[in-house]
């Protein structure tokens, strides 16, 4: 059995996975066929599976899924504005995926993580590493079109925004994430 704070965190993970899946799913539908569309298709399928993993996991550990209104990614858009082209979308996704892996690693290193949660984190992180790799490769293929400097500047801008969004999330949900930070020896922030 997990407590309310962890139940909320797992529900937030689930909501963010659903949001990521729907976003890339709809985007893939409107894109022309090609390597990026192909890999984006796997990406959104993975994210949909991840939301299912979290739903199953919460059930297994005796929790209750909570409907969370706003996915983590939506705060990105509020912080940095709307990405306007595919390169910007992939850049912001690259930053987000690294944040997800960082967060999942922190969670998995926490003390007394339920084995079902631990297993789910490990399973998802394998996919997330592939997400980072395919997006990195896709951004490389865009260098002739956008230029490496613009791509790097875009990534840097989103990194800075990510820091702000993460800090804001920690502040807003201090009680819940403090609990996780305590479990992980204070490494949350």
């Amino acid at each position: 059995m997990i407590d309310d704070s962890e139940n909320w965190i797992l529900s937030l993970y689930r909501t963010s996975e659903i949001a990521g899946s729907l976003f890339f799913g709809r985007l893939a539908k409107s894109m022309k066929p090609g390597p990026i569309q192909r890999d984006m298709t796997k990406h959104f399928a993975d994210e949909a599976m991840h939301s299912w993993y979290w739903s199953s996991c919460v059930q297994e550990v005796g929790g209750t899924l909570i409907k969370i209104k706003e996915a983590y990614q939506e705060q990105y858009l509020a912080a940095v504005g709307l990405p306007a082209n595919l390169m910007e979308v992939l850049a912001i996704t690259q930053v987000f995926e690294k944040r997800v892996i960082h967060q999942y690693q922190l969670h998995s290193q926490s003390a007394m993580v339920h084995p079902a949660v631990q297993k789910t984190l490990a399973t998802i992180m394998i996919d997330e590493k592939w997400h980072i790799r395919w997006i990195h490769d896709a951004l490389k293929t865009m260098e002739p079109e956008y230029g490496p400097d613009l791509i790097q500047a875009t990534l840097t801008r989103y990194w800075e925004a990510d820091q702000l969004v993460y800090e804001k999330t920690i502040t807003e949900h201090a009680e819940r994430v403090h609990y996780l930070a305590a479990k992980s020896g204070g490494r949350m922030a």
Partner: protein
Amino acid sequence: MTNQSRVREKMAEFLGRPINDLDNHALLADLVVESFMLVEMVIGLQEEFGGRFFVQDDLKDIKTVGDLLMLFEGLVHT
């Protein structure tokens, strides 16, 4: 069909709304359930019309359907 008519028609398709909802003064924020839909639509339109026209700064002041149509005007080839 004019460039603006073509773009407006595609916008209606993306948003799943009747084209009459998309008059020039309609606020984009009122036409979408969530902001992700705007991103999808803008990128989808660029894919549809054969290019990647915009960067983030271009969208900074875009509030209405008319604003977006003006942005596409001249970039969409007939």
